[in-house]
C-alpha cells in the first residue's frame, strides 16, 4: 500500500516537472515575450531592464529554467497586473480558490446524488422507458453548452422570476471572514444569514456546472451496474438465498461504484474547465472567473499560476481517488 502511494507520488512529481517545463516555454513564446507578458505594455524601459536582470534572460536556457523553478518553489510568480492589481499572483489564486472549491463541491454532490440512483434505476430497468428517457437526458446534458445553460438558468430564475441572486458569491451583509469558505464562515461565526446567502448564490451555478458530471456519472453508473449484475458473485449471492436488499446494496452497488469513483475524480478537470464558463456567467469570484479575466486582460503572471495550480489540483485529486480506490478494492494494489 505504501509502495503504491510512493509510486504515485513520484509520478505526480514527474507530471509537475514536465508541466513546469511546458509552462516555462509557454511563457517565453507568448506574444511580446515574457517581459511584456509579466509587466504589461505600460512598463517603463527601466522596469523592463530590471526584470530582465531579475529573470536572468541573458543566461543560458537551462540556467533560466532552473532559476524559474527555484522561484516557483518559493511561490514567486510575479504580481498580478489586472485581476487584483499589485497582489502576488499566488495570493490571487489563494483568495479565489475557496469559492471554486465550494462551487465544485456543490455541483459534484448534486451530480452524484442524482446520477447514481438514476443510473442504478435505469440499469435495473434496461430498455424500458425510464432507461431510455434518462439516457437521452444525459446525452442532452452533454450537448448543451455549459455557458448557455448557465445563461438560461440565470435568465429564468434570477432575472425573470427573481427567486435567486443574479451574480456574486454572497449578499453584502458585512459577514466576518475566517476561512474564506463563506458557508463554513457563517456557521463558525453563527452568522447564519451569511451561510444562507452563500448557499443561495451557489444554487444556480452548481446546477449549470453539474450538467456534465451528471451525464458522465449517470452513464458510468448504468454501464457498471449492468456489468456487475451479470457477475458470478451476484449469482452466487442469489443462490445462497440472500435477500434482494443485501444483494443490491452489498454485492451490486458496492462493486458497481468502483468505476464511478474513478470517473468522479476525472470529472474534476471538466469541473475546472466548466467553472471558467459558469463563474463568468454568474460573476462568481472563483478561479474560473479569474482565469477568464486574466486571459482577456493578458495578466500572464496570474494566468500562469492558475494553469499550473488547476493541473496540480486535478492530479492531486486523482491521486487521492486512486489511493481511495486501492483502499476500497484490494485487487488494484497488486496490479
Amino acid at each position: 500500500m505504501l509502495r503504491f502511494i510512493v509510486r504515485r507520488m513520484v509520478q505526480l512529481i514527474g507530471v509537475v516537472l514536465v508541466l513546469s517545463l511546458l509552462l516555462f516555454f509557454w511563457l517565453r513564446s507568448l506574444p511580446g515575450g515574457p517581459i511584456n507578458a509579466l509587466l504589461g505594455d505600460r512598463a517603463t524601459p527601466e522596469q523592463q531592464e530590471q526584470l530582465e536582470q531579475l529573470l536572468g534572460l541573458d543566461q543560458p536556457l537551462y540556467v533560466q529554467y532552473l532559476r524559474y523553478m527555484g522561484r516557483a518553489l518559493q511561490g514567486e510568480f510575479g504580481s498580478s497586473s489586472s485581476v487584483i492589481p499589485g497582489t502576488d499572483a499566488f495570493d490571487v489564486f489563494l483568495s479565489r480558490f475557496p469559492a471554486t472549491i465550494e462551487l465544485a463541491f456543490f455541483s459534484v454532490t448534486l451530480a452524484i446524488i442524482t446520477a447514481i440512483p438514476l443510473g442504478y434505476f435505469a440499469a435495473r430497468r434496461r430498455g424500458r422507458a425510464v432507461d431510455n428517457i434518462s439516457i437521452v437526458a444525459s446525452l442532452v446534458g452533454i450537448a448543451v453548452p455549459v455557458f448557455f445553460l448557465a445563461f438560461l438558468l440565470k435568465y429564468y430564475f434570477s432575472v425573470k422570476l427573481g427567486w435567486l441572486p443574479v451574480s456574486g458569491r454572497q449578499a453584502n451583509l458585512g459577514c466576518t471572514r475566517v476561512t474564506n469558505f463563506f458557508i463554513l464562515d457563517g456557521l463558525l461565526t453563527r452568522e447564519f444569514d451569511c451561510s444562507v446567502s452563500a448557499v443561495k448564490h451557489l444554487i444556480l451555478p452548481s446546477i449549470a456546472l453539474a450538467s456534465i458530471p451528471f451525464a458522465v456519472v449517470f452513464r458510468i453508473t448504468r454501464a457498471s451496474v449492468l456489468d456487475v449484475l451479470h457477475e458470478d458473485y451476484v449469482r452466487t449471492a442469489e443462490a445462497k438465498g440472500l435477500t434482494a436488499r443485501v444483494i443490491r446494496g452489498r454485492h451490486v452497488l458496492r462493486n458497481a461504484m468502483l468505476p464511478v469513483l474513478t470517473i468522479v475524480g476525472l470529472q474534476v478537470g471538466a469541473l475546472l474547465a466548466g467553472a471558467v464558463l459558469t463563474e463568468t456567467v454568474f460573476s462568481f469570484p472563483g478561479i474560473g472567473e479569474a482565469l477568464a479575466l486574466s486571459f482577456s486582460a493578458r495578466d500572464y503572471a496570474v494566468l500562469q499560476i492558475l494553469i499550473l495550480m488547476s493541473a496540480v489540483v486535478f492530479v492531486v485529486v486523482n491521486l487521492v481517488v486512486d489511493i481511495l480506490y486501492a483502499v476500497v478494492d484490494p485487487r488494484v494494489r497488486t496490479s
Partner: protein
Amino acid sequence: MTESPKNTESPKNTESPKNTETPKSTGPLARYRDSRKERIDALAQLSARDRSAEPVQVTTGAGGTGPATPDHLTVTESGAIQEAPGVSLWASAWRRLRRNPVFIVGAVITAVFVVVAVFAPWLAPKDPTIGYLIDEVRPQTNPVPGPQPGFPLGADDRGRDLLSRLIVGSRQTLIVGVLATLGGFVGGLILGTLAGAFGGWVDSFVMRLVDVMLSIPSLILALSISALASEPSQWTLIIAIGVVQIPIFARLLRGSLLAQRSSDHVLAARALGIRRGPIIFRHMLPNALAPVIVQATLMLAVAIIDAAALSFLGLGNPDQRIPEWGQMLGQSRQFFYSHPQLAIYPAICIIIVALGFTLMGESTREALDPRSRR
C-alpha cells in the same frame, strides 16, 4: 497454424454470453424482475434475439486485413465451430445499427446537417453578410430588429438576416469541427502509434507528455494555446480545439495497440518473419482504428461545443463575414436578456447537431463493443 490458437480461444469468447443469457431467462436473476409478465417479455425478447443473432465472431478486428485473421471461421453461441461467410466487425455492427432507432436519429441529424452545410450558400434566402435591416437598428431603443416578412427569424444587431446566417453558419461550424477533430486525430494517431508500437522509453516519454496534457483541464489548455497567438482567428480556434483532443486519441490508440501486441494475429505475423513496420501498419493499426473512429464522431460534437465556449470567452473568430454558430452564440452575450433569440437559435442548432453526432457515436460504440451484446 493460425487456426489452433483461435480454437482454444473460442470457448473464452462464447463463455460470457452463455453465462449471462442463462440466468436472464430461468436463473436466480429473474427475481430482479417484478412480475411474471415482465419475465415473459424478457424471454420473448431473448428468443427474438436468438433468431436474428449472428454467430459470435472470433476475429479480433476488422476482418481480412492480414493473413492471420481467418474471418471465415466463426463460432456459434453453443460453441460449435462452423464455416460461414465472412462478417467483418463493421458489417456485424451495421446489422445491429440499422435497426437501432438511436443510431438512425443520430445519422439523420448528421446527414441533414452535412447536406445543409454543403449547399448552404444556395439554401440561404439572403446574403448573410449584408445588413438589410441596418436602418431599423436603434442602439438605444431597438438594437435587434424582430421577425418580419422576408426575415422569419428577424435580424441580428447589424441588421443581417438571422435565418440566412444560421444556414450559412452550418458550413463554418462543420469546417471548424471537422478540421479540429482531424487535427486531434492525426496528432493522436502519431503519438499513439509511437507509444503503442515501440513501447519502452518512447512509450514512457509520450505517455508522460500525454498525462501532462490531460492534467490541464481541456478548456484551460485551449485557452493557453490560443494565448500564444497575438490575434484570435479561425485557425487559432481550430488549433486550440484540435490540440486538446490529441492526448485523448493518443491514449485510446495506444491502449488498443498494446492490447494487440501479444495477440495471436500479431504473434503469427511475427513468427512468419514480417518486419515491424508492416506489422504495425497493416496488422495492428487497422484493427485499432474502430474505437478511434467512433471516438472521433463523439469528439466532433465536443469540438463544436468547445468552439462556442471559446467564442464566448472572446477567443473565437472575430471575422463576422463568415458566420459560425459558436461565434453567433458567443457574440450574442450582451443581448441575452433583452433579445434571447439571438442566442437561442444558434444554441438550439448546436445542441441538435452535437446530439446527432453523440447519438451516432454512442450507438456505434455500443454496437462495436462485444460486451454490449449481453
